[in-house]
Structure formats: C-alpha cells, structure tokens
C-alpha cells in the first residue's frame, strides 16, 4: 500500500494525491448502475458471470462425487439396518406386553409373541406384511371380543380404524368374561405405528364397581327431581319396561298404584290409558306400541289425550341416550279452551269476508258490464261519427272543385284538413278504447319485418317531404315475433310523431341488433327534444307538448297508443332525449329464431282497397271461439266488429246503442232463443234493411229455402274468410 505514496513528494502533495485517489475510487464504487454500458463495466460483468458459471460447474462435479460416495454409504447403511432389525426383534420379544409395529405404508413390520394373545385363534392369521386394515379385519373376527347390541362388529371396525387415524390413541377393548385389553397406538417419527396391548381387566373391574355405587346415588337424586316437576313424567327402559315415574303422573292420569311398578310393560300402561282416556285426533295406539317396541332410533312424538273430566293432556315422548324412552304429560286444558274460542271467532270472520267478497264480485261485474257498454258505445259512436265525416269530406271535395275563387278553395281546403284531424282523433279514440278494454286481440306470430318497413317508407315519405324533412328507414330481412298490424301502427305513430315535432332536419328509423334474440327499432328525429320532466307525460292521452312552435296539428294520442300496444305486446319502449338534442324512441322486438317456413312474407295485411275498412259489423255467434277468431280477422281487415252471443242480446244491443251496423253476420243456430233468420227479419222489420249474411254449417235444402224466402244470402261454415271478405266488400262497396 505504501506504493501509493511517493516519499519524494511534500506532505501537502501526498495529501492531495490521496484525496484524488479516494475521489476516483469513490466515483468507481458509486458509479450509477445505468452507466453499465461502459466497456469495462461490461468486461467486469462478463468476468463475474464467467467465474460464477465455472464455480457452478465445479460444484456440480463435486455434487456428483458426493452422490457416488453416498451411494456407497447407502449400501453400508442397508447392511447395518439388517443387523439392527434382528436386535430390535430380540428387544421387542423381551417386552411384557403385546407389541406390534406397522411401517409408514401401514404394513405389519413386526410383532411379538404376546401380541393379540388374548384374542385367541385369530392370532395365527397375523402375518408380516399384512396391511393395517387387514389386521383390524382379522382381529374383529375374534370370538373373544365382547360386541354389544350397540357396538356391532362393523361399527367396532370403523371405530378401531378411526383410532388408528389419530397420531396417538389409547383405548380399551372389552373382551368376554369381563376382561379388558388396553390398546395404545403411537405414530413413530417415520410415520409408522407402534401398538402396545396391556391386559387391564383388574383395573377395569375395580372401576366398574365404583361406577355402580355412583349410579345408585344418582338414581336417588333423579327421583327427587322428577317428583318436583309440574309435569307427569314416566321413563321406560330400552325394552319398554317402566323404569321411573313421578307422583304428578299418578295424579294426572289417575292410574292405580298396581300399574305403576318398576318393570311394568308399556303395553299394560297403555291399556289402562286407552280404557280411561281418548286419543285426540285418533292417534292409533297400535302405532304407539310399535314405536315403543323399537329398540332404538325412535323419533320424538307428540299427541293429546282427553280424560273423562274433559281435561286435555299434551303428551311428548322422546328417546333417551340409553335407548330407553321418556314420556311427559302436560295439562293443556285451559289452552285448548282458549284456542277453541279463537277458532269460533275466526269462522265468523271468514263468513263475513266471503259475504263481502261476493258483494264486491257483483259490483265488479256491474262495473265490467258498464265498461263493456261504454266501449261498445265508443266504438259505435266513433263509427257513427266517422260516417257523416266521410260524407262531409266528399261534399267538401266537391265544393273545392266547384269553388268560385281561390279564397273559397282555400277555406274549403282548411275545412277538409280540419275534418281530417277530427277523423284521426276519432280513429285514435277508438283504438284506445279497445286497448283499454282489453278487447284488442293480438295476433302475435313470426313475420318478416322488411315489407312492413318498406310500406311505412312509402306511406310516410310524402308527409315528411311536405315538411321538408328527410326520412330514412333502415331495411332488414329479419323475421320478428309480434302483431304485424299493431307493430306497424306503433312504428307509424312514432314516425309521424317525429315528423310532427321536427321543423327541419331528418327522421331516421334505425335497426340495431341489441341481443341475440331481439332487435331494437330506433326512431330518431332532429326535433326540439323532450325535457326529462315531460317524458312520462307525453305518453298520456291528449298530451301535446306545449311550446311547440311547429304548428303541427298533432292529436296527442299517437304515443298513448304506442305505449299501450308496446306494453300489451311486451316490447320494451324507451326514449332518449334532451332538450334541443332531438328525441330517439326505441322499441325492442323479439327476433324469430330458427327457420320457419310459414313466416308471413307479406308481413301485414294491407286493407286500403277493402270497402269494409272503418265499417261496423254486427256479428251474432254463440260459439265464442269462432266469434273471437272472426272478429280478429275482420278487425285486421279494418272493420269494427260488435259481437253478441244470441239474437236477444243482439236486439238489446241495437236498442241500447241506438245505431245500425253497416253489415251483419248472423249465425243460423243461436242456441235456445231465436235463430239467425228470425233475427234478420226482426231487425229488418224494426229498423231498416241492413246487408246481412246467414252463417251455417247446415247444408240442408230446407235452410236454403228459408234463406231464399227471407232474401238473405247464406255462407257455409267452415267459413272461407276470403269469400266472406269478398261478399262484404260487394255489399259495402260504393
């Protein structure tokens, strides 16, 4: 180290040098790790690594040498082990008790001559190498072991193996002739098991004597306890013999002393009880005997007894740990009386509830009837209103053509639009009344969405163009499950609504695949949007958002219909809108999954050319299913159907609504009352002729003659609906 200092230097120079050397060393030691790219750092790293690798290789070679050495040692150890074993055998033999050793794989390694000596002949079957399970199995066959009714051989084996699973276990095995063997098991460090067997018969006998004395004194205490109880108690042995009871029991069931003696059988006591008391709920005494005669495993039971003084006893019987059983008697007379009173009261109450329910039912029926009447009225009235409106429109059209000047033409044009508005309102009211009355019958089935959308596009485009809006409707070839007519109505309403409330911009119908089994139809507009507080309200009837500067002549019923239909069809309806951001209504409809060759490719029925659209038809048909089917089909074609189930009902109805239908369909056979032809004649006589068809499956000449003479056409059942529509069309057409 002295070399670092040049003795020729001055002390100051030496000091400066040492400081600079230190600085260089410190710099090197503290060189940041990031600067490891320097050549020397790289060299240093590589050198360290290289020496490590060499060190490892050397270690490996050393390990191999050691392995060879230990192999040699192992061979020597094996020889030693053999020797040790024979020494061990000698040692084991010199022990006074039975001794056995199992290895960690539970194989019998060695045992001395005293092992299992007390268990008799089974000892001869013990062989070195048998498993512990085999050993227990062999031992359990010994005729010397005292198995009890409780501890059968199987459970003895299970218990013995359970002991073996513990690291250390000491337990006694009962042998015949009142002898006992104490077995202690220890797990050795290597996971083997050492078993030591000691004859402890003398000790055990002494213990048993002491226990007997203890039981005696416990018995006295029990006696006193029982007598102290307010319940009657009796205890039976496992064999159903009376073992104990208290004085309260004697007092309660008034049992003579000759019956209650230790050892009296359960059957004898039951016999007395049966003669003097009654079992509530006819609990069969045979069942009770069978229960008592079980030697063990009796479930707890409970029953009631009534004696001649009408006193009621609740009896509870339960098995005890020693397989005997105990019964307790409680006097529940007063509780039962109270309960009976309650039951009486309850009965009265129920009767009153039933009366009220009946009364309510009647009121409900009245209400329903009133509702039906209302709906019929609305239907009829709407219809009745539409007729003169149509006429007025015709006149107006004529007037417009003949208008002498522009001003008049303008006025008549406005009048026409006003009338059209009124017509829309009435149509919508009609729909709502049907939906609310639950009369709207839905025809839910798979159909192709495409045609519905393209017809909507055709229909709505001119309306949109009139307002200068762009209308785009996405196309889809999907099949959905819905009611084609009502779904079309929903979409139409949403689109026309969007058009109404949008001043400029566009209305889009977008199709989004929301889920695997559903699609969402979104109608987006660029209108003013809807404030959050208005969202619920817009679905209410006649609500139109105030402050709409569009001047649109909305009737406010479209969305009410939309919501009702969507609810009824279970199509989730959603609205996303912010004021000034436009609105987006979305309807989610289920997709038709799987191929269905019967899908209606035309989608909806277009009834524009049928004369029955908007007409009121009176259908009298006593077969309700048929009536419903026909109503549905006719309504889908655009007619309003009023149905009555009999001729009498039909006449009543006509009286009530004070209206005549546009056409009538009468079933010929209408049950007990008047038939269809009679009805036709009465209507004709009472009002004025109404285009009528008789419907019947009867193809007899007699009926044909009657129809001919009554001048009414006959349509045979089963009804060909196209034929019927054609027929109606011909009589209703202009």
């Amino acid at each position, binding site marked *: 180290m002295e*070399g670092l200092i040049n003795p020729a230097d001055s002390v100051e120079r030496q000091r400066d040098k040492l400081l600079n*050397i230190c600085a*260089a060393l410190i*710099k090197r030691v503290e060189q940041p790790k990031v600067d490891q790219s*320097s*050549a*020397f750092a790289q060299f240093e*790293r590589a050198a360290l690594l290289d*020496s490590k690798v060499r060190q490892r290789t050397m270690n490996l070679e050393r390990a191999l040498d050691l392995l060879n050495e230990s192999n040699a040692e192992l061979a020597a150890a094996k020889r030693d082990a053999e020797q040790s074993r024979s020494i061990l055998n000698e040692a084991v033999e010199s022990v006074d008790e039975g001794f056995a050793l199992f290895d960690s794989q539970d194989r019998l390694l060695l045992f001395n001559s005293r092992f299992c000596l007390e268990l008799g002949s089974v000892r001869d079957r013990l062989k070195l190498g048998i498993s512990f399970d085999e050993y227990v199995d062999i031992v359990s066959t010994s005729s010397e072991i005292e198995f009890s009714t409780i501890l059968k051989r199987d459970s003895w084996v299970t218990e013995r193996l359970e002991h073996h699973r513990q690291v250390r276990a000491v337990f006694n095995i009962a042998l015949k002739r009142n002898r006992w063997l104490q077995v202690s098991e220890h797990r050795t460090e290597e996971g083997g098991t050492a078993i030591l067997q000691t004859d402890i018969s003398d000790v055990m006998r002494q213990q048993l004597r002491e226990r007997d004395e203890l039981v005696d004194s416990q018995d006295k205490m029990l006696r006193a306890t029982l007598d102290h109880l307010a319940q009657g108690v009796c205890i039976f042995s496992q064999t159903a013999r009376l073992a104990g009871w208290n004085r309260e029991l004697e007092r309660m069931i008034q049992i003579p002393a000759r019956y209650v003696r230790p050892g009296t059988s359960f059957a004898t006591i039951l016999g007395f009880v049966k003669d003097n008391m009654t079992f509530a709920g006819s609990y069969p005494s045979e069942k009770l005997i069978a229960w008592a005669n079980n030697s063990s495993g009796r479930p707890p039971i409970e029953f009631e007894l009534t004696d001649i003084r009408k006193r009621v006893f609740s009896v509870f019987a339960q098995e005890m740990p020693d397989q005997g059983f105990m019964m307790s008697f409680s006097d529940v007379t007063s509780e039962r009386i109270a309960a009976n009173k309650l039951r009486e009261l309850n009965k009265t109450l129920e009767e009153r509830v039933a009366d009220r329910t009946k009364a309510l039912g009647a009121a409900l029926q009245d209400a329903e009837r009133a509702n039906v009447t209302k709906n019929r009225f609305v239907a009829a009235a709407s219809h009745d209103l539409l007729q003169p409106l149509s006429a007025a429109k015709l006149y107006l059209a004529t007037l417009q053509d003949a208008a002498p000047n522009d001003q008049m033409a303008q006025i008549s044009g406005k009048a026409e639009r006003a009338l059209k508005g009124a017509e829309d309102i009435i149509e919508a009211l009609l729909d709502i009344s049907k939906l609310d009355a639950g009369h709207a019958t839905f025809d839910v089935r798979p159909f192709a969405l495409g045609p519905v959308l393209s017809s909507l596009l055709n229909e709505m485009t001119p309306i949109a163009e009139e307002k200068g809006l762009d209308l785009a409707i996405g196309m889809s070839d999907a099949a959905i499950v819905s009611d084609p007519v009502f779904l079309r109505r929903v979409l139409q309403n949403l689109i026309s609504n969007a058009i109404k409330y949008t001043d400029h911009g566009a209305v889009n119908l977008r199709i989004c695949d929301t889920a695997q089994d559903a699609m969402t139809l979104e109608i987006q507009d660029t209108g003013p949007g809807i404030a959050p507080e208005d969202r619920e309200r817009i679905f209410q009837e006649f609500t139109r958002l105030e402050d709409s500067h569009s001047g649109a002549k909305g009737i406010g019923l479209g969305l009410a219909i939309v919501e009702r239909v969507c609810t009824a069809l279970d199509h989730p309806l959603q609205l996303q809108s912010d004021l000034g951001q436009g609105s987006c209504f979305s309807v989610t409809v289920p997709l038709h999954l799987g191929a269905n060759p019967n899908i209606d490719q035309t989608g909806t029925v277009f009834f524009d050319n049928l004369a029955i659209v908007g007409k009121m038809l009176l259908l009298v048909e006593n077969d309700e299913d048929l009536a419903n089917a026909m109503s549905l089909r006719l309504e889908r074609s655009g007619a309003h159907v009023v149905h009555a189930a009999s001729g009498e009902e039909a006449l009543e109805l006509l009286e009530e609504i004070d209206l005549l239908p546009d056409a009538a369909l009468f079933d010929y056979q209408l049950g007990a009352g008047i038939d269809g032809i009679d009805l036709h004649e009465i209507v004709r006589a009472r009002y004025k002729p109404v285009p009528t068809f008789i419907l019947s499956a009867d193809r007899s000449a007699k009926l044909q003659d009657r129809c001919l003479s009554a001048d009414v056409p006959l349509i045979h059942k089963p009804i060909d609906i196209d034929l019927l529509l054609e027929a109606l069309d011909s009589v209703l057409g202009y």
Partner: protein
Amino acid sequence: MNHVLRPVGEDGGSPVSGQHLVSFSERIDRPDFVDRIVQTLSATPMSHVMVFACPEVDFASLISTLHAQLECPVVGCTSAGEISEAGFVEGHVVVIGLPRRWFAARSVLIKDLASADFSALNDTLIQNRLALTTSNPSKTNGFSFLMVDGLSMREDQLVGAISPGLLGFPLFGGSAGDGLKFEKSAVAFEGRVYENAATLTFVVTNCNVRVFSVNHMTPGQTRMVVTEAKPEVRIVCSINDEPAAEEYARLIGKDPNQLDEFTFAENPVTVRVGDEYHVRAIQRVNEDKHLVFFSAIDEGMVLSVAHAQDIVEHLDAELTNITTGFGAADIIACDCILRRIEVQKSQKSLKVNSVFQKHGVVGFSTYGEQIGPLHVNQTLTGVALFPPTAGD
C-alpha cells in the same frame, strides 16, 4: 497415441497436417505463394479456410484471389506475427483448412463495430448456429472462433453482447494485429477485407473440442489507482494523481523515458474481478505520457503489478495438462503480442517453438484475446481438437 509432426521442409513452406486440421504456412516473399496455398488446399475437400496474414502482405488481393479460387468460404485477419507449424514466424501467411470429413462451419460478418448495436446480433447468430447443427447432425461438438479488428477497441462490448447467442459453442478468438505498428488491422470475409469489423465462425466437428486460455501472470502486492482515464479510447491519463506513465514507471522501478513493449510485457498490471485477476495489457506510452491499453479500463480501477512465471515452463505444463488423456491434439492459438515480445526479449523463442511443435500449435499473435464472454490480454487462448471418441 503419439502425435507425430512432420519435419518442416527446408523452404519452411511444406504443408504439415495434424490429425484433423490441414495447417501450413507460406512465406509471402515467394512470388507464387498464393498459388501454392490454393494448390495445397485443393488436395482435400474443405468446409472452411482460415488465414492469418502478416501485415506486410497485400491482404485484400490475397483474400480476393483465395475467394475466387477456392470452393469453400475463407475468413481471416491480419496479425501481429504468425505462429506456423514451426513456431513464431514473421512475413508469412498461416493457413488452416477445416476438412469436410471432420468439420462443417458457417461464418458471420459483424461490421461497423464502432457504431453497431450488438443486441440485434444474437438472432442472426442463433439462426446460423441452428442451420449449421441441423444440417450436420452427426457432428456433435462445436466451438466459435472470433477474429476482430484489434484497433477497434470494441472487443469487450462485442464478446459480452454475443456470448448469449453461442449456446454450446464455447468462444475463443483473437484481435487482429498490425505487427507493432498499431495502425491498421483487418478481417476478411467472402473475398473482401473489412476494418472496424469482426468475423465469427461457428464450427461443428466430430472431434473432441476443448477451448482454453492460459496466462502466466500472478498478481503482486504493488497497487495503483487509475485517477483519470478516457475509457472509450482505453487511455489511462493519470495514476495515483500523477501522469500515468511516470507513476507506472516509479512503481515498477523503471525510468519513465525507457518504457517499451518489453517493459510492459515483463510488468503487466492486473485488475481483480470477483476472485480472479485479469491482465490489462499496456500497448504503449503516447505523447501525453498517458498509457494506452489493449483492453477496457476505467477510472477508479485498482491495478496491481503482476509477476510473470517462466513463460516456457508454464506453457508446456498448461498445454500438457489440457491435452493429457484426449489423444494427439491440433491447437489453434491466439497468442498475445506481449508474450511474443517477452519470449523474444528473453531469448526463449527456440524453447517456445519446440513447445508449440510438441503440442501442434498454429495461430497468430494478437492485440488481445477473447475467451467466453471476456476480452483479455497477455494470454494464449485457443482450441484444442482431439480425435473423435471411438465410434466416429
């Protein structure tokens, strides 16, 4: 088994083959030396040829001719002196042919050492290595041989970076030299000569292989601390806060104005890494009285002056130790120029030559040696090739 060397021919140019390599040398003052090389090599189907050429030769012309006339790839480098089958020679070209019967090889050129990013190299190396082993399944032993421009000063980084890509192919190599001029050294690849470059040759063979490095230095007690350095050019400016050359001279007890190669060879300094000492050889004293090294140095490095054992005895003992029990050997050696200087100055050339001959050593004198991931100095580093284990 005895390895018998044929006597060197009178003209010093007769080819001498070992057991498995075809190695020979030609004097470059013979006008037909290139033709003679081609002729000798043509006698045996070769998989690869390596040449170590003295700095006086027209290296580019030699390489392009060999490339044009030989069917197998040729790699090579310039030397700081050659080791022929006769021992230390100068003005020669030493040629080593790897016969196809025993060897297969693939070489890779690594250019622009000063700027190259070596981390990307490993993929190329591994691909070449796998291609070689896959097409030569019966040649189960291997080694890699590096020749690198000895004036590039990038050997430390290069070997450190490529060593992960050499699995199962222990590396040895040498830094190409320029006699004692330290001006221009080069490597050759595919008929062209490159400076600031290296060639790495993967070799597979049936022969048994042992890559080794011997070093006859033992570290002494005299220590010094590098207080100022320029690591990127391997220059130590000051030692113990004094001009490096002067302080070094003071510590070894020499006149600072008399320092030469022989001084450096005789009084090398070593650095301790882990438990081992590695020689950091001094190349020369520059005009600033700074010491220029042959390998990586840094500030704060502690150097200790080492003492040389007898180079001849040491070499013989080491080579005997390496070859004993494996049969006759062929050895390709990269021997440090400082060792050559020490031998020549101490007039032990004859003795060393006979040790080389005894052990079948051919190779060249280097500006530094590479072993495994390390660039070292003042060693003899090489590969010993032994007859295949019975069955081949």
